[in-house]
């Protein structure tokens, strides 16, 4: 398959981006400042992220659309208000996570933001439950820009009046340059911020404005350190089709009503896990020293039994220490439990830690 590029590819190039192949796209891993500075400027001022590689999947239909989607998504879509968003999943028959997503109720149906690497398969999976009256579109004419950081609201409000009134996980249409764009208050960094769905033809103009307000471009490298400090999962690493939401410590993301009534893929299995707990569970991990426990690092108990593995690990610039997430046997999952991490054949001490590593400041 040919490598794809977002509408901002040349813009990134001019900003000095270093590109890497990611989910079939050439995406910036970092810019001139480097990962740590990009990370810090997002936490202290604001940064923008081109996440246009993610799928913006629109669905339209009558009441039966909700019934169809609820078979594969364990959110309470029936009671989701227009312009409200939920974090949820696509589940397979075993309750495994096919993808994690944000679903927003629109006037005519729903918009689902899908991971780039998963989006084609996701649409296949969703389509199995749709009928001929349900319309759907993966809109590639739209870019998606995340604006994240404490100054985001002040900066975006000047350009698009009204965005400051949005609450976390809600959105609205706004006028910009004679077009409609859709803004939600959400993100993937643990900071206040927005995700802006904007036509490919207008996106450069928006970025010009952000840069003139000293918003820095942020690559995938800092996106990863930011989301990991915020305790957020990365699909394909912390989540996959063999992991279910209970194991992923994301039972909060299954709607209360759906937990009681079920009616979605894998419900029997998940119902059982909700009552009895799972054998393994996702936890936060802090190495005692400076050693970085990266993905696939084996985790051992103090008496040297293998008890789990790391799924994401890096250095957290705001925590100023290494941070990691991984899966351990549930009896070792209590915060404060001492563990060992095997890095380059040597065992280093560490502890099960609370998530997030970095406290968020969402506007509720």
């Amino acid at each position, binding site marked *: 398959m040919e490598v794809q590029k977002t509408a901002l590819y040349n813009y990134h190039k001019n900003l000095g981006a270093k590109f890497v192949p990611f989910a079939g796209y050439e995406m910036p*891993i*970092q810019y001139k400042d*480097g*990962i*740590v*500075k990009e990370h810090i400027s997002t936490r202290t001022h604001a940064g923008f992220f081109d996440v246009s590689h993610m799928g913006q999947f629109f669905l339209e239909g009558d009441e039966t659309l909700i019934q169809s989607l609820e078979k594969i998504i364990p959110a309470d879509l029936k009671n989701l208000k227009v312009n409200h968003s939920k974090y949820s999943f696509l589940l397979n028959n075993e309750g495994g996570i096919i993808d994690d997503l944000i679903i927003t109720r629109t006037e005519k149906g729903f918009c689902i933001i899908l991971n780039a690497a998963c989006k084609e398969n996701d649409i296949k999976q969703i389509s199995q439950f749709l009928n001929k009256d349900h319309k759907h579109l993966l809109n590639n004419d739209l870019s998606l820009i995340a604006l994240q950081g404490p100054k985001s609201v002040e900066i975006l409000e000047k350009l698009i009046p009204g965005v400051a009134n949005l609450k976390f996980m809600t959105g609205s249409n706004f006028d910009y340059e004679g077009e409609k764009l859709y803004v939600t208050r959400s993100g993937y960094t643990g900071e206040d911020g927005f995700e802006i769905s904007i036509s490919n033809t207008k996106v450069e103009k928006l970025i010009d404005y952000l840069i003139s307000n000293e918003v820095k471009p942020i690559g995938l*490298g800092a996106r990863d*350190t930011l989301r990991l400090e915020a305790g957020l999962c990365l699909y394909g690493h912390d989540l996959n089709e063999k992991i279910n939401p209970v194991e992923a410590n994301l039972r909060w993301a299954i709607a209360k009503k759906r937990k009681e009534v079920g009616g979605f893929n894998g419900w029997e299995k998940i119902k059982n896990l909700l009552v009895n707990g799972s054998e393994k569970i996702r936890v936060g991990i802090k190495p005692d020293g*400076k*050693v*970085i426990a*990266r993905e696939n690092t084996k985790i051992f108990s103090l008496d040297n039994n293998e008890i789990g593995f790391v799924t994401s690990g*890096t*250095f957290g*610039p705001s925590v100023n220490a*290494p941070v990691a997430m991984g899966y351990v046997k549930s009896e070792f999952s209590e915060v404060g439990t001492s563990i060992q991490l095997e890095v*380059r054949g040597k065992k280093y001490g560490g502890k099960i830690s609370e998530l997030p590593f970095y406290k968020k400041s969402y506007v509720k």
Partner: protein
Amino acid sequence: MSEKKFSKKHEWVSLDGDVATVGITKHATEMLGDIVFVEVPDAGKAVEKEGQAAVVESTKAASDVYSPISGEITEGNKAIADDPGSVNTDPEGASWFFKLKIKDKGEYDSLMSKDEYDKFCKENPS
């Protein structure tokens, strides 16, 4: 102290008598990005030419640091293990990785000069 010599794996070596000081080059730090972890060898460890001797990790990935010269480690630079970021600031000065007592000066002589190394980096961009 002798002039600095360079390896294809982006280490530098300087020689004072039979004790060599080894670090990674500025070019290497620019490729690695922000350095967040360093592990240096303990005194007494024997290292082979081009054998793994230390570890450097950036926010992106972990890399091995090889010794461009064989010998016995006399000292690892604990200061960079405590402050890994200092390797980005002064890679070819205070932020050396380790010192070792060398066995064969010929190994040092066969490394690249500064000019040869600069040319090598230009011809092998990564």
